[in-house]
């Protein structure tokens, strides 16, 4: 079960609905906690009120590779068949399903600008994908147990006890080796993570954790209204309240977040073919013909009147289709 703890270490909540969780991810702007458990079930929970927003069966088995794309808030999972799927809390089917690797996917990372994704597979390949066209930009050889992008676009690859940092220096998405760091032999690297506004890479390994300096990886100019490394407790309290006021509803998660407020594309309605139209007309006439007549008494039940009424009803049923035809011919 996942547990939520206080700063002092007291256990606040035990989230029983999530089950036996393998990976947890937090969507910052939406205040959603996403979890994947060993049965392959993806759950979204709103941490402000505690309600479960979505609960989906991925159908692709057990996976422990899960990452949130910070640009648009979609959660992507890497599966053992080599597919990467992307999910949002409001639909039960994945948004995108990509076949990335020939073996299982071992790690996944997103660039902060939302265009690049790095995936690594157990067949010893690291691929850099363009998320706008869903195409491979670059394939690099190498194992990777863990991947992470820094704010400035440097990619950290960790395998065994060796960390390699790649960077694209020409800006053309050609990642080449920048730095490497090998730890004491025997330490197994679990996870690497770049620190947001500093040039520091944190490495979590089997004997604890350590950090190394990576020049050029952090954003040197921070914006005080977004994230202030030197904030006072008063500022932190204000920021918390304001971020709660600006909490985004889960419906705003979409692949292209700049679509909010734009004009929706008009759906082209396919005109029914002539056969279909005739079939519809026949169906309408049949429905009318199945009408049950009331037996009128006192001499009002004349067959001629019945026949006339029947004809009128059939003509009425046919009229909208004929009007449409006329309109079509006119235009």
């Amino acid at each position: 079960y996942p547990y939520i703890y206080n700063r002092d270490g007291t256990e606040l909540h035990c989230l029983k609905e999530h089950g036996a969780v393998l990976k947890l991810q937090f969507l910052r702007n939406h205040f959603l906690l996403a979890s994947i458990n060993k049965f392959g079930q993806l759950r979204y929970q709103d941490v402000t009120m505690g309600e479960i927003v979505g609960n989906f069966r991925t159908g692709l088995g057990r996976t422990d590779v899960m990452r949130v794309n910070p640009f648009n808030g979609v959660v992507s999972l890497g599966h053992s068949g080599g597919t990467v799927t992307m999910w949002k809390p409001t639909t039960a089917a994945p948004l995108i399903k990509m076949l990335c690797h020939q073996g299982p996917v071992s790690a996944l990372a997103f660039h902060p600008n939302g265009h690049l994704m790095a995936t690594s597979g157990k067949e010893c390949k690291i691929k850099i994908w363009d998320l706008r066209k869903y195409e491979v930009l670059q394939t690099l050889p190498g194992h990777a147990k863990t991947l992470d992008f820094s704010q400035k676009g440097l990619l950290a690859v960790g395998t065994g006890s060796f960390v390699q940092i790649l960077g694209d220096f020409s800006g053309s998405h050609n990642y080449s080796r920048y730095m490497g760091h090998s730890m004491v032999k025997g330490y197994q690297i679990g996870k690497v993570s770049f620190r947001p506004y500093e040039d520091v890479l944190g490495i979590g390994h089997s004997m604890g954790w350590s950090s190394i300096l990576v020049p050029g990886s952090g954003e040197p100019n921070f914006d005080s209204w977004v994230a202030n490394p030197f904030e006072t407790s008063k500022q932190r309290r204000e920021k918390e309240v304001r971020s709660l006021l600006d909490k985004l509803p889960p419906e705003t998660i979409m692949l292209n977040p700049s679509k909010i407020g734009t004009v929706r594309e008009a759906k082209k309605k396919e005109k029914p073919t002539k056969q279909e139209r005739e079939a519809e007309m026949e169906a309408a006439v049949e429905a009318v013909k199945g009408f049950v007549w009331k037996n009128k008494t006192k001499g009002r039940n004349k067959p001629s009147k019945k026949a006339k009424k029947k004809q009128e009803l059939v003509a009425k049923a046919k009229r909208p289709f004929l009007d449409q035809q006329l309109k079509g011919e006119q235009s």
Partner: protein
Amino acid sequence: MKVKVISRSTDEFTRERSQDLQRVYHNYDPNLRPQEKAVEYVRALTAAKLEKIFARPFIGALDGHRDGVSCMAKNPNYLKGFFSGSMDGDIRLWDIANRRTVCQYSGHQGAVRGLTVSTDGRILVSCGTDCTVKLWNVPVATLTDSDDSTDNSSEPLAVYVWKNAFWAVDHQWEGDLFATAGAQVDIWNHNRSQPINSFQWGTDTVISVRFNPAEPNVLATTASDRSITLYDLRMSSPARKVIMRTKSNSISWNPMEPMNFTAANEDCNCYSYDSRKLDEAKCVHMGHESAVMDIDYSPTGREFVTGSYDRTIRIFQYNGGRSREIYHTKRMQRVFCVKFSCDASYVISGSDDTNLRLWKAKASEQLGVVSIFLSRVFAVTLHPREQRKHAYHEAVKNRYKHLPEIKRIVRHRHLPKPIYKAASLRRTMMEAERRKAERRKAHSAPGSIVTEPVRKRRIIKEVE
């Protein structure tokens, strides 16, 4: 080898003393702010809801008259002074800020039909159904308002008796002349006891008169023969006339675009015209359910307020077809006159139930903190941070106001049941008429039936 890594020293990024302001740094890179549009949308939604929470437009009622208020005038030189005349001949000068009567002028025998103030703000001209025009002295405003109630009634400076009952009066914006409307349009000077000039076109009574703010010699009148006539004082005869299907109760010139004026009509619409081209209305403002009685433009020229017989006040935009705002109260009966205050923040309405009511022009505007010091009331302006927050809310709401959830909240106004029912009935009737006209056109020979645009539909003809 020297390695250059980010290193920030605490003194550069934190303040030295606790009296200093906190240091703020900016980085406008959009990559640092993901999902900006969604955040803005949520803020726009919250801003729309907050606007509705804080929308309390009614400020107060000015009580005192003993009969329905028939006309109002505003003093061009003094923001706080408003004059109102009632149906029993009582004229009062009000102090709007303290909501009390400063001065009372009695003397008219019948209803007071028109009030206007001279250019320098010293003389009040009133006219009534007792065929008299009276000139009164306006007390000079003192900086410290005296606390004791000054109900002193004054004697009129001059009383001019003429042949017929008067319906309206208006003073030139820059000049010495004023015009009265009755059986014909008369032009008066302050010192003469007889009109110096008289205009007449047709035999019907002239109901209202308004001078143009920019051209001191141009004035517009409405008459009971459903016409709107334009006059030029330098010519000996009236200039132009447009006849509509229903009569107009009142006119107001746009102070920022002085060639345009808007007429409040009996058929529940207001028509904006360009005075140079009267054959087609510039804009038709629809919204009221009953005859529109009075209209006044805001000094910004961007919106105007109308009061109607259906007990509501509406604020329209100068180029918009639907009202931006509607004000109503259970106690406010038929509204006969409305005025926009000279600083464009308040609207004053005079109605049949003997009260003048003071409203905010923008219902959810925060007008400032009111503090009471030594038993005097002071209004303090807003903190600049608050002003910026209001401006931000406005801007972000305007950006997303076309999206359905926000549009629904921003557009929503509570209407009293009779008005709601009247509006839906009207809508059904208009819809039925429109559908029938459409079908008639569709089933007749193409080109035989010509639909007239709405702006032309209510005009019968234009006469030179």
